[in-house]
């Protein structure tokens, strides 16, 4: 964390709104998972969302690309409002990349095919061009030599880096990360975080559910703390970690930072 200032200094946040969530509620049956969520994300922001398990943080980012449906309020991504309209949903999904806790690579396809499948079939990119882009991103996540292997032959950290590259191949404007390092062995976490830091440096708009507080301090420009389906506190990382305002935040931070 020595280069904290320099890393954040190079990343600019614009005035353009990337995601706007207004008065959003979500229920699973009777259970009220998300309560009155209001967030405005500007282009180029790196937001870390943290909170105890069951607080609704994963559900929140999964609402942004409509893997979960919200029942009340508005979510506007890239000026398109998420409604039941399938065309709008597909349009948003093409612009929003997502990285999952369990990687979710396609096990029946090689790494290269994993990366080129969506560009070829969804974006209609010519195969040669899609492969060139795929190799470019594989080099960026530092595993071009694994292109012809199958996901089952890679380590967890490598699989997650492939998953990040796979999302980037769709050339998204926003990236969502749903606990990208929590299924990894400890020695593999840093290789994935390094890729994410590199991605933040390119100015990508990122929303990241994670408990990696080192990562939050290093790249986030905003940390959101959720508990019980509500946003309890949000602030700049320095303030958030050094001066948590709410008791629940203080308790949470003391629990995860104590060891």
């Amino acid at each position, binding site marked *: 964390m020595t280069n904290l200032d320099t890393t954040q200094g190079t990343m600019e946040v614009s005035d353009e709104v990337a995601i706007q969530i207004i008065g959003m509620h979500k229920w699973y049956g009777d259970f009220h998972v998300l309560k009155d969520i209001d967030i405005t994300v500007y282009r180029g922001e790196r937001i870390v969302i943290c909170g105890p398990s069951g607080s609704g943080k994963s559900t929140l980012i999964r609402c942004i*690309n409509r*893997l979960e449906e919200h029942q009340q309020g508005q979510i506007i991504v890239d000026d398109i409002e998420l409604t039941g309209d399938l065309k709008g949903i597909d349009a948003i*999904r*093409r612009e929003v990349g997502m990285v*999952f806790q369990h990687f979710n690579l396609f*096990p029946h396809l090689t790494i290269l095919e994993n990366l080129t499948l969506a560009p070829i079939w969804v974006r209609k990119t010519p195969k040669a061009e899609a492969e060139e882009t795929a190799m470019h991103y594989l080099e960026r996540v530092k595993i071009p030599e694994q292109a012809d292997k199958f996901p089952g032959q890679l380590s967890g950290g490598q699989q997650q880096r492939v998953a990040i590259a796979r999302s980037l191949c769709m050339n998204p404007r926003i990236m969502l990360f749903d606990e990208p390092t929590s299924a990894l062995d400890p020695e593999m976490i840093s290789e994935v975080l390094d890729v994410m830091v590199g991605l933040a440096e390119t100015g990508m708009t990122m929303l990241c559910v994670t408990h990696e507080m080192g990562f939050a301090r290093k790249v986030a420009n905003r940390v959101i703390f959720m508990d019980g389906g509500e946003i309890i506190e949000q602030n700049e990382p320095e303030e958030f970690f050094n001066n948590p305002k709410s008791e629940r935040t203080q308790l949470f931070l003391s629990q995860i930072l104590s060891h």
Partner: protein
Amino acid sequence: MADISFVRTESHPDLPPPSSEVGIIAWLRQNLFSSWMNSLLTVAAIYALYKILPPLFSWAFFNADWSGKTYQDCTSEGACWAMIRVRFGQFMYGFYPEAERWRVNLGFLLFFGTMIPLLIEGVPGKKYFAIFVFILFPPIAFLLFYGGLGLEAVDTAQWGGLMLTMVLASVTIIVSLPLGIVFALGRRSNMPVVRMICVCFIELWRGVPLITVLFMGSVMLPLFLPPGTHFDKILRTLIVMAFFAAAYMAEVVRGGLQAIPKGQFEAAQAMGMNYWKLMGLIVLPQALKIVIPGIVNTFIGLFKDTTLVLVIGLFDFLSIIQAATTHKNWLGTSTEGYVFAACVFWIFCFGMSRYSITLERRLDTGHRN
């Protein structure tokens, strides 16, 4: 206290394994004589083979009659294979006119000639073979087998023997798989009407014995059709058998669909894939791979079930053999007939089973950790 600090500086060399781990003796010990129970079973099995095999070989080969005109010509103790030889043409083609049998041969030659390269790994131009087999071949086969365009018409009543069995089996197999996939997808659909229709279809066909279905198709169905409509018996049989098989196939495929983790759906959706791309590119390739054993199991069952068409008066391979053995010239040869039928069925079914194992291995990308 002694010093507990230890650092290894050289690694231990690999030594050759002891003789108890490799070689013939080790194999015998591990596989046949690993315990006293296993040894006992081995000895018992060897004794049983000693008792069964010599008489079997003497019946089937050493004391068998290979030629003759009637059962009376079979004078030795063993099998009367002369019956098979004399009736072989009928077993293969039924009552198909002898002068036209080249058409059947050509049809199956084309079918296997394009099907085999399609099934073998690494043969180039698979797309063209597939287009031929699944799109061009059916009308060609119809022309060849049934007649038309200058070829003399051969009524389906004359079809029979192995040819009929092969027609029934291959058509039902090729039709039932895609149909079954459609019904399996429909049964898991979010649209209640589609789901209901698929559930009703599957449960209706699966809940009725095949013999009943065949009777319905051949006897009952014409009663409901407007008078004067001619609807070929074999065609009706093909339709009901394909539906019957599709219902089973649908349930096999559904098992595979349910085995695909939710994350696969989500990953594909998150990249903007619509339902058909998600299913066609991500879910079905994985689901079908998982259920290859179940699919081939259904195929094998179906292949053998074609013998049930004898109840509606079609002379498939098995029933034409039965008919031959009850002919006055060949009374007493039913054992030979059934053994021959069993061997032919076994070759086809074993072939399918082996191919399915090869396919499973070829498609294994090692994701089952």
